[in-house]
């Protein structure tokens, strides 16, 4: 064990298991080559806490868990360490109150730059504090004094995140094998599969650190029996690589062949890139059309490479950060994302509570282009059990049991997502469903300003495009109070692709364009609008009341968004978004909201993915006021720069009863 000066980094290894090499500071990414004899032993943890007493205690506890521990008493130093040695850590434990940097800031950085699960710690166990942690995207929140048992289980966050990411790949890749492993394991098999998973994770991480090929790598490397899959899963990372390649070449000169070369992803074909590029161009076109209002948007989109790349990464991180309670891997919601990724959302988790939704869903068009479809592969909302039931009945494979409301996010989604079979169809259906629902909702619940409980559900995985559906009461049909039910909103939104959000919603809820209606809930969120109080009292987050835009939203009891409030700020953004959609679908929601969603400010380049964030925000809120997209029917422009824009925090959960909330977090 080497102990360095207190303020510096110190790494100690718990026992000597496996063949451990390096582990000191400063070796390259290859320094920590650990062979895990028995997962989760060897998990590489970075602990950051200015309280040296706690630091020492936690270090000792982690050693007892046979983890590989690196401690640091200064956040800035920790961040540097993480940056220098990307891929060298599996999870970060950080204190909330630190003198040199707020724990949440660190959390944001880590989420954005390294995509690692971050667990917060604090002596402050107040609900509001924990809530804040969740909103900022922490995977977990531990209250001091911390017990060893709690630390023993932190590996689950690492695995979960990995698996969720893998899920995307599973659909179309040879990882199906792994998928089977993962999903079909019972306790007995768990260890071995966990090992696999762990190794996969480790491998992936190293790969990521080295080649940034993680997704592709996994696609290709982990499964020797792979036969070229017909479909490539455009994960967040992959898409980012794509975007950076395009940026580098310049949009005009970006030809598939060159992009492919720059990306240098094994297994990716020119055709994959070409089709993705086509979608991307369309996306950009929409954005630029919509971006009039958003000054930044067009620029970013067409602008210098950097912004684009940034956006992409931001979006991803943002979404991730948004991932509620950290349980869920960051998932990009935006329909655009789905669009771009061309990935059907496996799990449309529409939380529609209404049978109508199901109907709609079932009857929905089968062929909505992916772009339009909502791709949620996973998570999403668990909001309402009935909905899920319905959905399930309706053959939506993705529908997860809503029962737990939030909890389900990650894990559930994954499970349900499972076969993405006919995702496209699903999404299509969903969108239709959503639309129908929305319409119905609108008619029925004018007053209700239900905010889709964004927090609820969004568990959007990057692969899925979550279309923020106008939360408005429409979807919810009546859940006002329970935030959980609200979730449905979210789902709805998420499920619905933008197109669906359809302008039809005359009611406030959907009209994205019409902010005042509060339709756009989502957008509101995005624009970093911090809605004034309106939201249920408890919601402390700045989250914008997504509701604002949508009058409807109100309902949602709670949370979030102060729902019904108008998010004036947000609206503008949304417009952009909407605009884009309408062009596409015609019906789409007014852009207004959308604009906010993504474009606000940053002009996200990356589609949809981030949209999810928007919705999720309540939970995940990175602290930006991201609004929970749910509320607004807004269609989320994929990738709207959620990250940037949404400053709207979605007051989440406020209204939920503690149980609801708790259930969300329980796996």
């Amino acid at each position, binding site marked *: 064990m080497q102990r360095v000066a207190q303020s510096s980094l110190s790494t100690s290894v718990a026992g000597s298991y496996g063949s451990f090499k390096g582990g000191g500071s400063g070796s390259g990414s290859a320094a920590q080559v650990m062979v895990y004899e028995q997962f989760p032993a060897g998990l590489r943890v970075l602990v950051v806490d200015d*309280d040296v007493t706690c630091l020492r205690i936690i270090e000792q506890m982690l050693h007892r868990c046979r983890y590989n521990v690196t401690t640091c008493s200064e956040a800035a130093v920790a961040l540097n360490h993480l940056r220098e040695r990307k891929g060298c850590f599996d999870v970060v434990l950080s*204190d909330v*109150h630190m003198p040199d940097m707020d724990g949440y800031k660190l959390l944001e950085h880590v989420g954005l730059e390294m995509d690692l699960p971050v667990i917060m710690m604090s002596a402050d166990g107040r609900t509001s504090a924990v809530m804040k942690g969740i909103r900022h995207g922490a995977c977990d929140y531990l209250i001091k004094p911390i017990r060893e048992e709690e630390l023993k289980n932190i590996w689950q966050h690492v695995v979960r995140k990995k698996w969720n990411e893998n899920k995307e790949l599973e659909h179309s890749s040879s990882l199906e094998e792994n998928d089977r492993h993962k999903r079909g394991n019972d306790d007995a098999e768990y260890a071995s599969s966990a090992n696999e998973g762990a190794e996969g994770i480790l491998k992936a991480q190293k790969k990521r650190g080295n080649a940034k090929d993680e997704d592709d790598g996994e696609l290709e490397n982990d499964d020797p029996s792979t036969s070229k899959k017909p479909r490539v899963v455009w994960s967040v990372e992959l898409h980012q690589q794509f975007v950076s390649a395009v940026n580098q070449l310049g949009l005009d000169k970006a030809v598939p062949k060159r992009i492919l070369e720059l990306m240098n992803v094994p297994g990716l074909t020119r055709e994959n890139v070409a089709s993705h590029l086509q979608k991307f161009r369309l996306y950009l076109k929409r954005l630029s059309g919509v971006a009039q209002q958003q000054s930044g948007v067009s620029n970013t989109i067409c602008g210098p490479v950097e912004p684009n790349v940034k956006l992409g990464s931001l979006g991803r991180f943002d979404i991730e950060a948004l991932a509620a309670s950290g349980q869920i891997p960051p998932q990009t919601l935006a329909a655009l994302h789905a669009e771009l990724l061309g990935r059907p959302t496996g799990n449309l988790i529409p939380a529609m509570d209404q049978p109508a939704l199901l109907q709609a869903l079932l009857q929905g068009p089968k062929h909505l282009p992916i772009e339009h479809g909502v791709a949620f592969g996973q998570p999403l909302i668990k909001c309402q059990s009935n909905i899920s039931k319905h959905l399930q009945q309706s053959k939506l494979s993705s529908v997860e049991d809503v029962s737990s409301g939030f909890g389900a996010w990650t894990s559930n989604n994954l499970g349900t997502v499972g076969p993405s079979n006919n995702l496209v169809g699903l999404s299509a259906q969903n969108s239709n469903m959503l639309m129908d629902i929305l319409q119905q909702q609108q008619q029925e619940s004018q007053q209700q300003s239900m905010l889709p409980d964004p927090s609820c559900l969004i568990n959007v995985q990057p692969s899925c495009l979550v279309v923020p559906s106008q939360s408005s009461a429409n979807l919810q049909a009546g859940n006002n109070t329970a935030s959980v039910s609200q979730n449905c909103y979210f789902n709805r939104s998420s499920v619905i692709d933008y197109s669906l959000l359809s302008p039809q919603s005359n009611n406030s809820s959907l009209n994205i364009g019409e902010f005042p209606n509060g339709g756009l809930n989502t957008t509101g969120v995005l624009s970093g609008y911090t809605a004034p109080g309106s939201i249920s009292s408890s919601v402390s987050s700045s989250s914008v009341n997504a509701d604002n835009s949508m009058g409807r939203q109100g309902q949602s009891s709670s949370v979030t968004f102060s729902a019904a409030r108008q998010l004036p700020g947000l609206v503008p953004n949304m417009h952009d978004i909407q605009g884009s959609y309408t062009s596409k679908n015609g019906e789409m929601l007014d852009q207004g909201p959308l604009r906010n969603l993504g474009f606000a400010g940053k002009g996200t380049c990356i589609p949809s993915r981030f949209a999810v964030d928007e919705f999720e925000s309540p939970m995940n809120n990175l602290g930006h006021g991201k609004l929970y997209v749910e509320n607004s029917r807004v269609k989320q422009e994929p990738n709207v720069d959620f990250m940037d824009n949404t400053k709207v925090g979605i007051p989440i959960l406020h209204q939920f009863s503690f149980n609801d909330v708790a259930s969300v977090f329980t796996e």
Partner: protein
Amino acid sequence: MDVMSQLQRQWLEHSAFLRKEGYLDDQFEQLQKLQDESSPDFVIEVVSIFFDDSEKLLSNMARALEQKVVDFKQVDAHVHQFKGSSASIGAMRVKNVCIEFRNYCEAQNLEECLRCTRKLQFEYSVLKNQLEYLFRLEQQIRAAGG
């Protein structure tokens, strides 16, 4: 042998006393459990760190409260930290005073804050003495072959 068992008995009694009187809680036991061959002086090590930290925090608190214009947020930050570290080692009484202290910080009640500082100093000193006694016993036990 006699000495040893006597020492051990004293050690046990003192530990029980500290627990009973609320100076220490379960968390301290957790610390003791964490001590093993690879870290044979773990408890003493951690408690020493705690003592060092505490003294710094206490003096910071006092200084902050002496300012013309008291920055209660700053005081609260110190108290919060102290609360965290005392909770981590199981110093229950100290922790409880911290909890009370924080309320007064929030209320910006200078007088009560000053009172709490004194109380905190007191509880901390008592705890320190108690623990040092306990550690001395331990050392003696070890010296005697235990």
